[in-house]
């Protein structure tokens, strides 16, 4: 059994309690909504691209669990200055981390403190929470228009299976 206190680190909780990027970006050049219907996580990612095509600023709005919100705030920090291609690569790296395909040590250089979410790989039902912002960002950069769901293709919440 993984200890979730490895997950609910001071770094994650700081981003949840005092987020840096939880606001609507007024001059956003693109926005995209991502939802996890069974959890009620519903985040919108906003981004402003600079004239040279790099990402100038990212923010997030919406509601969700601590993992989804903390992860979104950490992501917003990391995206500034990247080209869309670099950003998509980083989203893919994060996906590998939370699915347990990449160790926290190997991910730390690219993902900085977001690498602390590595322990979620031991909690399959929560991976979609951590991934929500990243997948939404990735789909926004790919030009998606429909809201994204990280539950697509996953086993739904089984509830009290009878």
């Amino acid at each position, binding site marked *: *059994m*993984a*200890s*979730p*206190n*490895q*997950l*609910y680190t001071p770094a994650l*909780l700081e981003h*949840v*309690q005092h987020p840096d990027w939880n606001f609507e970006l007024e001059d956003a050049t693109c926005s995209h909504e991502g939802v996890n219907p*069974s*959890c*009620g996580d519903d985040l919108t990612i906003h981004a402003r691209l600079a004239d040279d095509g790099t990402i100038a600023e990212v923010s997030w709005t919406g509601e*969700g*669990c*601590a*993992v989804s919100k903390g992860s979104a705030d950490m992501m917003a920090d990391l995206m500034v200055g990247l080209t869309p291609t670099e950003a998509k690569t980083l989203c893919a790296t994060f996906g590998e981390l939370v699915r347990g395909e990449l160790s926290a040590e190997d991910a730390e250089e690219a993902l900085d403190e977001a690498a602390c979410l590595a322990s979620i790989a031991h*909690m399959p*039902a*929560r991976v979609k*929470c951590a991934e929500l912002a990243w997948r939404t960002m990735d789909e926004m950069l790919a030009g998606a228009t429909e809201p994204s769901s990280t539950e697509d293709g996953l086993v739904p*919440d*089984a*509830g*009290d*299976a*009878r």
Partner: protein
Amino acid sequence: MADLCRASGLTASEAENLEVNPYKADFPLLAAHPDLAYLDNAATAQRPAAVLEAARRFYETMNANPLRGLYSLSVEATAAMEEARATIARFIGAASPREIIFTRNASESLNLVARTLGERMLREGDEVVISILEHHSNLIPWQEACKRTGATLRWLYPDQEGFFSQEEIEATITPATKIVAITQLSNVLGMEVPVAAIARRAREMGAYVVVDGAQSAPHLPVDVRALDCDLFAFSAHKALGPFGVGVLWGRLELLDALPPFLTGGEMIDSVSQEGAVWAPVPQKFEAGTQDAAGIYAAGVGIKYLEEVGFEAVEARESALGRALMAGLAERPFVEVYGPEDGAAHHGVVSFNVKGIHPHDVSSILDGQDVAIRAGHHCAQPLLTWLGTSATCRASAAFYNDARDVERFLEAIDTVWSLFHGLA
């Protein structure tokens, strides 16, 4: 525990009873994890060794395909299944073991009813009445039956505390009602539904009564004839038995009159190139090879429950429910759903820690070896009606004890401290 005892109105002897636990040693998983506070019994029960040994004994000493065998092993396998059928018939007060049909789970039992009784009975303009408390298992089959037949689904609502008034029952169940399908015990709020009063009104209106007993059968003494219902469904896995075994009870004359649900082997008397003659009840509803070992073990689980006895089960689960409720009531940062009276919860308490998502709460509890459920509990319309998308839920069974309650409450404090920088 002394404080908790005072706050929850537990008597000294009730509190003392919760301090000792004569049951845990019978449950290998709980015995192997003495620090685990397993409070997700409404999702599935833990299994006593007797049940695990029974399944193994079946395969080691009587394994053969039951029903059609003409040799002694197969006869023994058949007898093992029929022994379970008789045990379960007695357990819920059925008139005859023939009234017991084995399915995979309560969901399948309820689908069977919706596809056979529902689709045979319902016409455009007819109404099916369910309640807002229903688990998806007793909701979607009726939504689908209504779609296929043009009937209308109507909903019974309880008051804020979760109780159904006679006025509500009479206003909703009318001469247009053909079927009333209702849970006996809410898997989210824990309170009992007045099934007998609802069945009486349904009878007066000429409607059939289907009861979802998945949550009630393991926690309350059930007497299907006293309830005066027509059909009653539950799952073995919530009643100390194995996964994959469900039960459907029905009045014999009704089961005789219904068409089969699934067809194939074992459910026929004779087959020609043109058609088939159905086997008598219950085999008519048991197509294909059954999980005979599971059914046998399910019967052993029910016998274990009967040996503990519902007097002890109810007393202990009531005390555990009151202790959980009292502990949460002392924490102003927790919001509890359902009746204020802890005794009305039958050990099931749904709650939220203010401002913290239920999935975060359950993950943090997991790190402290406290297992609860978080989410919509397969009752999304109920949660929407309660004004929330998800809750945490602690659900106790008689093999829980005072220490489980204490560890749960301490873990809830840790959740709050962690999020508010106090830890």
